[in-house]
């Protein structure tokens, strides 16, 4: 019993949604499904939030290593939750927009969350450089192609690319780095993207079918 019912729910819901694409009057089920998902996700917040609080309070009680940082997390979580749910400092009170300028919620977002967000994002500039230094090495043919393609595009994005190959006559102008970079983006890159996308779509179709037919059961406690 434990296993049949979930399988039944899964196949029924999935099949209905697949069919709803083809029946005009059932098409709204698609939006309903994503709305229902959001509502269930809100319930799941209790599990997630609960877990966050439990894990960090446990760390604090057991004074395990780095418990002071758990205090910081719990404080941050508490403060943000309170200022958000009660809209403290929000000029229009409970009806005001959550991120109304002037509300403490917006202040915390603007001066704590967004600098952290954009700085984490900015770390990518460093990581892109170290990944390039380490990964683009001509170890084998594939790695060499990877290196050459990245090298041409990188050069094409700077004035260096133009200066290096300006001397090439108009008849061979595709060999000028900026044009070569555009050609690489236009032809091989486009072909690769297309092949990957067709592959992905077939992967999703075969996986969804495996789910709907109940062949893929590891998460539902099936016994395969």
């Amino acid at each position, binding site marked *: 019993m434990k296993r049949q*019912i*979930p399988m039944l729910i899964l196949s029924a*819901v*999935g*099949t*209905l*949604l697949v069919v709803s694409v083809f029946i005009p009057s059932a098409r709204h089920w698609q939006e309903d499904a994503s*709305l229902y*998902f*959001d*509502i269930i996700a*809100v*319930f799941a917040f209790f*599990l997630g*939030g*609960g877990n966050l609080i439990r894990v960090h309070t446990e760390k604090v009680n057991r004074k395990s290593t780095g418990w002071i*940082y*758990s205090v*910081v*997390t719990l404080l*941050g*979580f*508490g403060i*943000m*939750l309170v200022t*958000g*749910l009660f809209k403290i400092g929000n000029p229009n009170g*409970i*009806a005001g927009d959550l991120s109304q300028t002037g509300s403490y919620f917006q202040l*915390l*977002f603007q*001066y*704590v969350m967004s600098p*952290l967000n954009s700085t*984490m994002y*900015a770390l990518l500039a460093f990581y*892109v450089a170290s990944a390039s230094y380490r990964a683009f090495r001509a170890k084998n043919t*594939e*790695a060499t192609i990877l290196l050459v393609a990245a090298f041409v*595009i*990188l050069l094409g*994005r700077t004035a260096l690319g133009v200066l290096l190959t300006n001397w090439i006559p108009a*008849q061979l*102008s595709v060999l*000028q780095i900026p044009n070569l970079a555009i050609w690489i983006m236009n*032809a*091989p890159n*486009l*072909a*690769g*993207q*297309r*092949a*990957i996308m067709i*592959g992905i779509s077939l992967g999703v*179709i075969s996986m*969804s079918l495996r789910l709907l037919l109940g062949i893929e059961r590891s*998460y*539902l*406690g099936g016994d395969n």
Partner: protein
Amino acid sequence: MTSKTAMRILTAIVALIFLISWIMKSGSGMSDSAFTNVRDGFLVTFAVFLTLSIFSFLYRDNPFYKFAESLYVGISAGYWMCYGFWSTVVGNFVPRASRSLSEFFHVPYQEHADHILIYIPIIFGLILLTRLLPKIGWLSRWSLAFIIGATAGLNLTRYLRSDFISQVSNSFIPLFVDWKGVGDFVNHISLAADGQFIAILSNWVIFVGVMCGLVYFFFSKEHKGAFGVASRVGIWILMVTFGASFGYTVMGRISLLVGRITFLFGDWLNIL
């Protein structure tokens, strides 16, 4: 000098700089009320402190990064839970469920919406919460089944239409572009970027590239002989794709760093 004392000295220095910057920033505040100036002075300095703490991770893991990380986790978890509450619960559920709550939250009550259906996700949501009770925790699988069924159902047709069908039809490209016969083709042949030859070459590369790329993804056929060659060309095309898109995105990443450093030098030290 143990690392403990080094750490203490470092923290003291950071606190000192923080204080100086706070005072300076509050002083240069434009708004008339002293309280806002002091508060904004603190907030700007704190933003700078967080920025530098994150950057310090590049050197190695340290208490400043741990502080910034744990604060970020706490604040952002709270942020998204408030967002979830206001936008989904108050925004979507309340208008469909009860008139009194809608008035309380000043949200337009939806008259004709089919109310009973809105209780389906509620029931599945409650079932999900049964995970907290070990005895009947397995009931939560019903909610998971609902969600996974919905995801599989929605994505099957979506990927079929948006990726499979449209990418196949986009691949119907002519292998001879504005063709006026072999003679004309031969005496205009050149590697000029906007020339006919390059246009034709591009379409050939796209056609062969897509076919070989697909061959690479074959699972159930031995990649040997002609099939093996096609698969090899396929992986080469994929490597060009990865190299090209890696190189192309580098600029976008660097502009993010330029933005942060301009913030540090401009808004904080205003030496720009």
